[in-house]
């Protein structure tokens, strides 16, 4: 965790430094990243708002069960957004909530959070976008809002989004990545990448194949996937792969078949 630590250190130093001289340069100084911890579950209030938050959490963790008609694969939101959307560097919801509306080069538009979540359903869940004003999006936005309570809006928070792994000095090598995959990943996701079942229910999520995310998803970009793997995989052993192994195994996973990008289908 060298990088996040130095970030935390930087933010600490930033907080200690007197503001005067910085302001005097007349340049815009990027705000130092701020740490944030989401509130504990017991802080979810009772009443209709709390109900919506809890509904959002249910959809988030059991997406197939509670929003099945919008889901086209074996993933849940939590497959990637670990710890129910709370874990730093696994695109936590609290980080997302305070980063929207935002311009995205993906569709060259300024999107609201709800629209961003629609994208998750279309690409990462290989499904269809739920209506913006419908219950599914509304409750996930409410869950995100609740989780971001107390976070500064529009300020970079440590752990937002995915980790940016430094560019690889070598071209990522899928052949070496296959070896890493077999040694470190296949135990859970299967040598065939198709995930594992447990008594008829999904055990470990598929990382490629027809029931995984499609080619339009964020993780279908090698760099993003490498950053996600580096910080989070194997489960409970984040930051144990070398940067090089993370790049290579991401390149291998990315070289495997998965559903097409729906924007390019017709």
């Amino acid at each position: 965790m060298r990088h996040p630590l130095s970030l935390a250190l930087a933010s600490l130093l930033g907080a200690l430094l007197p503001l005067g001289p910085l302001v005097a340069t007349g340049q815009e100084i990027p705000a130092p990243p701020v740490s944030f911890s989401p509130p504990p579950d017991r802080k979810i209030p009772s009443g209709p708002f709390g109900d919506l938050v809890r509904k959002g959490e249910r959809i988030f963790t059991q997406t197939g069960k509670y929003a099945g008609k919008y889901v086209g694969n074996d993933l849940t939101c939590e497959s990637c957004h670990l710890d129910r959307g709370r874990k730093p560097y696994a695109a936590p919801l609290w980080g997302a909530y305070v980063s929207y509306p935002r311009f995205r080069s993906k569709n060259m538009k300024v999107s609201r959070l709800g629209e961003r979540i629609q994208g998750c359903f279309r690409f990462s869940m290989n499904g269809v976008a739920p209506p913006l004003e419908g219950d599914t999006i509304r409750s996930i936005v409410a869950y995100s809002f609740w989780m971001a309570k107390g976070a500064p809006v529009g300020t970079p928070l440590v752990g937002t989004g995915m980790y940016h792994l430094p560019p690889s000095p070598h071209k990522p090598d899928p052949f070496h990545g296959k070896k890493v995959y077999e040694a470190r990943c296949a135990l859970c996701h299967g040598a065939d990448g198709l995930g594992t079942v447990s008594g008829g229910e999904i055990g470990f999520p598929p990382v490629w194949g027809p029931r995984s995310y499609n080619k339009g998803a964020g993780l279908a970009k090698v760099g993003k996937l490498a950053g996600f793997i580096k910080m989070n995989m194997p489960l409970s052993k984040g930051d144990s792969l070398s940067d090089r192994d993370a790049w290579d195994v991401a390149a291998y996973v990315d070289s495997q078949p998965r559903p097409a990008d729906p924007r390019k289908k017709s």
Partner: protein
Amino acid sequence: MDRSRSAMRPLVLPIFLLLSLGIFSPAHAGNLIERGKKIAQEGNGLPGSTACMECHRLHGGGMPLIGSPRIAGQTKTYIEHEILGVKAGTRYAPIMAGVVNNLSQKDIRAVAAWYASVRTPKLPDVSPYDPSLVALGKRIALKGRWKKNVPACVLCHGPEGRGIPPHFPYIKGQNKGYILRQLISFAFLKRADDPQGLMRGIARRLSQKERQAVAEYFASLPPPPADGQPDPPSSRKASP
């Protein structure tokens, strides 16, 4: 390679004869299971061998009183892996260590096939479950303790802890003394046969109270059902 093959040639005929007499036919899973059952009942006949059923019972229900685990319906892969770990000394298992040393590869495969094929109800645990520990254990099991880098147990052990074949054992319905002792063994003693050290890190990061709590919670659940079908709809994370 060739040398060893020619060295084996003299054995081919007798094996062929045995096969044709039906005395053993390794290809036949039924016979493997039967052979395993015999070992479970009587040991493998070598001096010092012990019948597994003395501690695990014939149908694998275990003996909560002496902390002997239920093994009924664990996967063949897992059972073999554990016995090999005990033999190799990578799994701390003071009681088992004295029992499995004279088992051959084939005995191990056979007895694993037997215990993987049997089902049996849960035997009563040694003492009632403490409701406050069960509640804490359930929270850890379903939501984890991510601040300490402990993921929800069900992510690796399947919904409710029913196991994710072939490598991840079921832990629901296991006796609580055994679960707790394994967590302590992973954390502090020499149970080091877990792939990539996954359990060692997790068990170490839990507090003693949390280890007790998850042991009580998983022990309080029924074991995976006899037919291998899913349990009644899983309540993963639906409630606190």
